């Protein structure tokens, strides 16, 4: 792990307006994540962990405070700049896999490369990753023909195919049985160990959180 934090967050606040009501989702979050770290964020519903995930992933702008991702300050980024961030620096893994149902597993991975303007052949290192994920033989199937565990592994492959600085995983085992959960968590840990992939994982499950190097707990929009 490098000493320079890849994620540096100071006094991060996020206020949503729901009709006439202001909702303070984040109330001053401070967090540093080292390059190559596997961080688990755990907390109850409404604790603000998903909001933190969305801000780090460039899906929504912060209201105030500072968020630096690989040296880039996210405060004040335009929509187009946040789109660029998602394209180049962040990979997402979701609880519901979120594969495009009309495309094969291979094409689900390819579309992420296409969006990032990477249209050449897959690099040999990524071929190794596909073997590590155990989906090399399932790439020509559409999501409906894959098990939940296989779909999540394809989603992981899609998330890292462009070598993002950070892999964001939102409850990646939330829809999986224990065996598949352990497999997916083992894969995430393996990616972190072998490739030095920085991972932020949100989870409700303390056992899943334990796969990370460090666990932070969130409650009421703050890190405890």
């Amino acid at each position: 792990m490098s000493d320079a934090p890849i994620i540096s967050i100071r006094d991060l606040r996020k206020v949503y307006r729901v009709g006439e009501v202001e909702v303070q989702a984040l109330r001053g979050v401070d967090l540093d994540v080292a390059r190559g770290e596997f961080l688990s964020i755990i907390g109850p519903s409404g604790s603000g962990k998903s909001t933190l995930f969305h801000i780090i992933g460039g899906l929504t702008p912060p209201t105030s405070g500072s968020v630096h991702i690989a040296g880039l300050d996210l405060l004040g980024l335009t929509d187009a700049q946040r789109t660029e961030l998602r394209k180049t620096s962040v990979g997402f893994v979701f609880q519901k896999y979120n594969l495009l149902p009309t495309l094969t597993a291979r094409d689900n991975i390819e579309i992420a490369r296409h969006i990032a303007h990477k249209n050449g052949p897959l690099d040999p290192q990524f071929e190794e990753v596909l073997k590590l994920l155990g989906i090399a033989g399932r790439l020509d199937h559409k999501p409906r023909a894959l098990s939940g565990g296989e779909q999540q592994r394809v989603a992981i492959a899609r998330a890292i195919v462009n070598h993002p600085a950070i892999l964001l995983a939102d409850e990646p085992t939330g829809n999986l049985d224990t065996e598949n959960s352990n497999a997916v968590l083992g894969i995430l840990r393996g990616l972190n160990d072998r490739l030095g992939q920085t991972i932020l994982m949100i989870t409700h499950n303390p056992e899943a959180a334990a796969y990370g190097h460090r666990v932070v707990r969130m409650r009421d929009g703050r890190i405890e």
Partner: protein
Amino acid sequence: MINKLVLENLKHRPVRTLLSILAIGIQVTMVLTLVGLSKGMLNDQARRAEGVGADILVRPPSGAIIISGGQMLARIIPVVIEKQPHVTVASGVLIYGTDLFKSITGIDLASFNKMSGGFRFVHGGPFQHPDDVMVDELYAAQHKLHVGDTIQEMNRPWRVSGIYIPGMLARMVVPLDTLQDLTANTGKVTLVYVKIDQPANINPAIAALSERLKEYKIFSMQDYVTLFSPGNIPMLTEFIYVVIGLGVLVGFLVVFLSMYTAVLERTREIGVLKALGASPGFILNILLRETTLLAVAGSILGIALAYGTRALIANLIPGTLVQDIVYLWWLISAAIALVGALLGAVYPGLKAARQDAIEALAYE
């Protein structure tokens, strides 16, 4: 890759895709059939006018250029027209429209035969009696007529005396005197065909006739047949524009509904694409490509269906309607379909492009 996504999206909902293509296809067929009928009917009329063998046509002062309207006194033929130099024969005909697409033409057989060289009969021969009618092969086929049969037109029976090869004058021809009496146009004709001794004398003859018949419309047949275009039929161009407008509206509505439901259905996928870094332009591009593909497929189907309508018309009502295939309008009707479809895709496309990624990802 994006084209693959577009194709797979369309294949994913085959019924919706096929219905959209069918609706666009019907819209294209509607335009192509209307234009094909306009051109076909006019070209057929022009061919039949040419088939008469005349060099000059004289029409009364009133009435439109092509549509039969207004009458003139038949006595101008011997008094004025036949007295002009170079005129070898003049024959007046009376045209009486029985409905929108059907008319009966009355001729003076002797002068008409002298001009045209006579009808070429496949069955029977020229009329012998005042209530005889001659019909062309297409009319006979459509109405399953044979020589000796009786048909009912203008509230009276006519006996079919002969069936002739199409391409001359009209589909139904009766004696001029009979039609004049029946329509209270005794002594009147709708137009006069004039034959000139030599082609070189046509223009001088027209000039001389124009001098004598100042208010009349006098054309060389060569010029006259070029006037058979939709622009010279009152309201036809406007009618075509109305159908085109309807076509654009149909394409717009069909694609609007199709794409709107597609966008709603794919809300989550749009969120995923955005999470992957897809820009609003990328999302819009996908929907516009899908729309373009629907419009192109619909246009191809529409062109194929236009051949179908032509075959149907040619088999069922060859004596009433004639539909041409107008190749230029393949492009025009496809462009109309594309414009309507793209207009229909704009709102759903912008809705998709502006979709908030977090809300889209949370969409169930």
